[in-house]
């Protein structure tokens, strides 16, 4: 009996480690940008190309920056969640149309609805690189001082919005 105890315990330890490994999502890479100032940019706006969208305009507000694209299927999944959040008025969601075609993005917004007050255009994906985006959708919570407080990799779901985003936004707004 004792003979099997040691191998069995080693096996269980290995099993636990593998189990933890299975539950980890390899897509969720901790962002080094959380806690740092949101990278600056000034990009043309999607709906009014002559106007510019820049995070400097957002100083003093808590806001979300959502990278999306009309070609991205995760964005379609996320879209109703963003619509609901925008409707609730808890926090403004600003969009960044990532490596997309302008007309397709416009069609997308007019077909499914537009949760964004302003959408910037990141044609070449450079803003995305500065924000460490590696797959849309990704969403950043930015505080009044322009510091990134949270990064959501992949689509937002109602649970994340309710349990993470809204409490965080409320806490940041109280500051």
């Amino acid at each position, binding site marked *: 009996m004792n003979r099997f105890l040691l191998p069995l315990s080693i096996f269980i330890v290995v099993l636990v480690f593998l189990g933890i490994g299975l539950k980890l999502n390899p897509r969720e890479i901790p962002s080094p940008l959380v806690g740092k100032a949101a990278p600056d940019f000034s990009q043309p706006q999607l709906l009014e190309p002559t106007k510019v969208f820049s995070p400097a305009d957002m100083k003093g507000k808590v806001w979300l920056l959502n990278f999306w694209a009309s070609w991205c299927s995760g964005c379609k999944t996320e879209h109703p969640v963003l619509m609901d959040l925008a409707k609730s008025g808890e926090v403004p969601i600003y969009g960044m149309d990532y*490596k997309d075609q302008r007309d397709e993005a416009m069609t997308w917004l007019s077909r499914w609805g537009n949760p964004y007050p302003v959408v910037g255009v990141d044609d*070449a994906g450079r803003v995305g*690189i500065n924000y460490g985006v590696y797959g849309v959708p990704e969403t950043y919570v930015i505080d009044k001082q322009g510091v990134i407080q949270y990064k959501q990799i992949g689509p937002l779901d109602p649970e994340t919005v309710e349990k993470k985003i809204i409490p965080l936004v409320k806490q940041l707004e109280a500051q």
Partner: protein
Amino acid sequence: MNIKWIALIGLLFLSGPVWAGEARPLTDDPASEARLKHLAVELRCLVCQNQTLADSNAPLAEDLRREVREMIAKNMSDQEIIEFLTARYGDFVLYRPPLKASTTLLWVGPFLLVIVGATALIITLRRRAGKVVDVPVTEDEHRRVEQLLAEGGKRP
């Protein structure tokens, strides 16, 4: 008829490079191309995580190669380029992560496992050596063994 076939085969060979889609040279300047290659094999593509930035055809990898190429053109050092990328994507972009508090297990783990394994092996072998006892063989058994061996030799 024959000529037609030869011409057809010839055409197939000619068309090879068209569909093969060879990777285009990364830059025009061979020196910066070499630098880009040297850097890109050390960097991970974040979309196809087991491919290097050099291997991957993901759009993000293309964009990042473009960024690296521009930084090379700006005469930035390898160190600066790697800092640019880790500031945005974290140590995960490096195939050789730096030794830090958070990566100690990663670096020390394999050695630790070897030490644990070797110790366990030595302990087991020693214990086993203690258990091995010489068994005396009697005259009769000797004869029987020889007889059996001799019989075995005769078998086809």
